[in-house]
């Protein structure tokens, strides 16, 4: 019998592709909807970020942090709206579309949490977490969300945390300019502590390891500010306490 008596029936095959094309179209629609929704989150995040970054040019941070606290829920609400569009169990299929926003939200929440501690007034930071270092739960608290409505992947949370030291060092620099000499030592304590925390991880994932390598330079700058204050007796000469 010859090998190719039956001819591949091109009719059946084009139906196979027709079906696939339809499923592709449905996935495209999901992606489009997710993308539009993610744009809204990005807009809310941009506003929140603009406000938070004014911490560098304000004398007292306390009123600013209160104002910013009100801008977190809209971001949380946007993230929840995005996640509601994700088909059951396919978070990691589409999360690339808004994972950058999750990282930004974690970064700004952790910064907010830490700055509240710096002001020695943990009121705004909420009673539960005494430590200066925000946890995913703290992010949920600020965003008014919970793990079921908004997934915060551990790696996105850690990538967000890595962005905090750079802002803290800039904050410390401006505090010195505003003669608020007590802040830099506590900032240096936070950053040193965070750096040691990251050294506990087996950092394989390249983007996380690269950001961690960057953090070293912020630790050094923070130490230099403390050194400047110490040799000019501008800050209390007690050894900086890691809070």
């Amino acid at each position, binding site marked *: 019998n010859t090998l190719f008596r039956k001819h591949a029936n091109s009719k059946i095959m084009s139906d196979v592709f027709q079906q696939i094309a339809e499923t592709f179209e449905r996935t495209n629609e999901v992606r489009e909807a997710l993308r539009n929704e993610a744009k809204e989150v990005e807009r809310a995040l941009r506003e929140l970020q603009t406000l938070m970054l004014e911490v560098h040019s304000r004398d007292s941070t306390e009123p600013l942090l209160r104002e910013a606290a009100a801008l977190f829920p809209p971001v949380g609400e946007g993230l929840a709206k995005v996640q509601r569009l994700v088909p059951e169990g396919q978070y990691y299929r589409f999360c690339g579309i808004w994972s950058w926003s999750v990282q930004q939200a974690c970064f700004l929440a952790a910064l907010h949490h830490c700055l509240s501690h710096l002001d020695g007034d943990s009121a705004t930071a909420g009673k539960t977490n005494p430590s200066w270092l925000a946890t995913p739960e703290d992010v949920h608290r600020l965003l008014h969300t919970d793990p079921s409505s908004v997934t915060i992947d551990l790696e996105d949370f850690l990538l967000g945390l890595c962005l905090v030291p750079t802002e803290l060092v800039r904050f410390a620099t401006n505090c010195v300019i505003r003669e608020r000499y007590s802040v830099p030592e506590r900032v240096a304590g936070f950053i040193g502590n965070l750096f040691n*925390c990251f050294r506990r991880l087996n950092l*394989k994932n390249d983007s996380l390891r690269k950001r961690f390598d960057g953090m070293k330079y912020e630790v050094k700058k923070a130490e230099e500010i403390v050194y400047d204050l110490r040799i000019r007796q501008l800050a209390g000469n007690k050894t900086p306490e890691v809070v």
Partner: protein
Amino acid sequence: MAEQSDNVSQIVSPEEELFMGYCKVLDVRQDRNLRLTKTSRDITVLSKRCIFALLRPNATCQQSLDNISQQLEKVQELLYFVCEDIDNSNDFWRHRKQWTPGLQEYLEACTLYHFIRYKVIPSMQEVEQQYLTLRRPRASTADANFQPQHVNPTLPQDDDRLQPEADHSTSLKFKLTELDYLLGVADATGELMRLGITAATGLGQADPFEIRSVLGTVHRGFRLVLAKGGYDTHELNSKVDVMQVSLQKMEQMCYSLRIRGGRPLGLLPASESQLAADD
């Protein structure tokens, strides 16, 4: 308090303890990544062996097709472990980058096997039934080399693993997505083209005009899917270009056969591959 001397037990800040927890969660993912990458590489090696065997001169005889189908079953044993390791939808998508290369090479081998045996490109359903229904390998046959060690997850809270089914039902179905199916079939068209060109030399069993029409239909199908555009098609775009090159090589081959009287005359004693060449 960072440790001072060498042997003082380190006093670890509360924040560091928190991170030790994070470390464990990341390690669980990292180990699964490594396991899946290794198994995926083994699947690729075995699948490539099946593809080479299918292109061998004696591949079309029943005996070697059975032999190749056994080799495919060996790959299914490895896929079983992959399936077990990503038994929930989160891990399925989170670790796709690790397992999809192996799956695609396996799908390429199955599509080529299916075409040589049944003269048709398998549909998604056919692939899922005949090639992705995986039985738990008997311990003895399972090659110790590929037995994935499960790192017992100490910190369940991140590891959103579903409750493992109580009784290990004998078979698991590997979830086939449209994208993986298309990527596998696309690669198979390259091997079909090799089959077609060998046939045009008169030394193979296939019919070059037949292969040209199958490649044409698959290519049209891919263009239909791509016309919609969208994110997933990025991976497909380059495959479709490669497919167009294979199709045009087959067109050139059929062209030169046509102007030379239209039939691939076997160099060796005339084989009955005198097929009515029509389109």
